[in-house]
């Protein structure tokens, strides 16, 4: 199957093909014979040309993978054909409103945003506390608060939509 690695504005083609004991992975035209053994969900042993790698792979967002190796972590963005299409559509829509989501579970300790309020990029919208630390979620662009979905004291899950920001024109 064909994928694309997105790196430094480039799209690098990657072909993954099953072979006995593993895969042939062809990156940017260069083939790698990979002996692959899945130990657990997200934990792999790879042997590539005699070199042994134990890696854990973790995906927080579609297309984005954290690959943990012995000597550190590498973030890799790799997209399937469908994901690539969706991403380019998303790019075209950029700026047309954005949801501020909780990147981790926590408790809302302060709501700074008010519906209808005009905000500028970087302005604080919600303060969420997790693990004894207060963290402020900020507007990603100028706009108007179209919806506030939480109130103080709410517990929120990772990924929960907290505030929606629309373009100024969309404001009531």
């Amino acid at each position, binding site marked *: 199957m064909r994928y694309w690695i997105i790196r430094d504005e480039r799209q690098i083609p990657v072909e993954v093909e099953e072979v006995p004991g593993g895969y042939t992975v062809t*990156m940017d035209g260069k083939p790698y014979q990979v002996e692959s053994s899945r130990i657990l969900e997200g934990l792999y042993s790879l042997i590539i040309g005699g070199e042994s790698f134990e890696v854990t*792979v973790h995906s927080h967002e579609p297309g984005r993978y954290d690959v943990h190796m012995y000597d550190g972590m590498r973030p890799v963005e790799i997209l399937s054909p*469908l994901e690539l299409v969706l991403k380019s559509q998303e790019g075209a829509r950029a700026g047309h409103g954005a949801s501020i*989501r909780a990147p981790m579970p926590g408790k809302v300790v302060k709501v700074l945003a008010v519906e209808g309020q005009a905000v500028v990029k970087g302005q604080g919208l919600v303060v969420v506390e997790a693990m004894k*630390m207060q963290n402020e979620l900020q507007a990603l662009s100028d706009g108007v608060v179209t919806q506030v979905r939480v109130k103080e004291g709410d517990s929120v899950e990772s990924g929960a939509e907290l505030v929606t920001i629309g373009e100024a024109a969309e404001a009531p």
Partner: protein
Amino acid sequence: MIGKVLIANRGEIAVRVLRALRDLGIASVAVYSEADRAARHVRLADEAYCIGPAPSAQSYLNADAILDVARRSGSQAIHPGYGFMSENAAFAERCEAEGIIFIGPPAGAIRSMGEKTRARQLMAAAGVPVVPGTLEPLGTPEEAALAAESTGYPVMLKAAAGGGGKGMRLVSDPSQIAAAFRDASSEAVKAFGDGSIYLERAVVRPRHIEVQVLADTQGNCIYLGERECSIQRRHQKVVEEAPSPFVSPEMRAGMGEVAVKAAKAVGYVSAGTIEFLVDQNGEFFFMEMNTRLQVEHAVTEMVTGVDLVREQIRIADGYAMSLGQNDIRIKGWAMECRIYAEDPLNNFLPCPGTIHAVRLPEGPNVRVDSAAFTRGEISMYYDPMVAKVITWGSDRGACAATMNRALMEFQIVGVHTNRDFLLAIVNHAEFRAGNLDTGFIGRNFRGASLPAGTPVPAADIAAAIYAFESSRKGACLPSAGTTPSPWRRGLDGR
């Protein structure tokens, strides 16, 4: 004789204390919040009782509930661990009043050392060197400016009730002192309910070196060498070691004797730690005393062979220490790395969540103290510390090499940890050379974040295979689009 002990704590330290109790053949009683029903300390204890909902104020800080369990379970003593009730003099007094042994110092000693300006006065009177500065809390920004003039800049403003870096400000220039005083004071009010601020001369490129002491009820008090704790991020220790590469045998004896003097000045009993600020010439100044077991006590255990928790329990039981000063020999070197569930690539934001799988390092010269387990929850309600990895070596180089090996083996699937950051510290040339001071992380890791590793084919291949296998499993389509993270920075991390 103590036959049953309640552990008023959670996480790795509760497990640590449990192990000492097992080793001594003493029954253990765990307490837990509703969020911790499945926690390791609950499962390893002989008895376990729920003391309230997840927030600490309603459970681990709930003295009534804890004492109620102590009575119901017939516990003769309470070990507070660190944090929570460990430096709460009122709690220690309540234990005493109810005939339950508090495994720690007398309430009076906690109180004397807990109020920072009073402690400085006491220490100065006892002949313990303190950093030049004010011995009384400052009333106004103007008073602060005057005091700074007499001490000389740079100065450090500190919350009298403080700890953990809250309510602290470094001031290098007279024009900033008034604003800094107000900031620090309001932060201190928020954090501790007490805005009192005092001032000290700031030591340039200081080391943070602390001395472990142990005192019994028979008047014996000894020191067990020092710990080097200069590797800190936002005033939180990250990597500790024993001994300090900076401390000669003569300096060790000198600091040790001063530490014993400090402990005796407050009638100290049990394990305690005197924290010193050490300047580049080796001059050392009393900072504060931690009147409890420290997170980093394990490195002292590794180089001395002394089990500090066991000694605490025996001392609390009224025994004279089995150890004299001459029994303490420092053998080899030990280091500790604190593994936190946080994201070093994203400004160390804490990462609560579920551990899908954990593999702790093992093998020769490795000790792990943890409460992590497969399918365990890292709760948003508590400290994000997941595990302590401690290594020993015949010398500092061997110890650091083994720490590198242990960190490489450390593996958690499911939550971010600071492992990579710890690896980067331990393998940093300046760290290996022993050039440590409290500015190490700020100087060497700009923005206090870890840069991502450079791409390697194996990582790309791993991601591709994972993506391939996930799609083959018929995973749902990804939700459309991704937005950049709005998660900017910790509000307390200015």
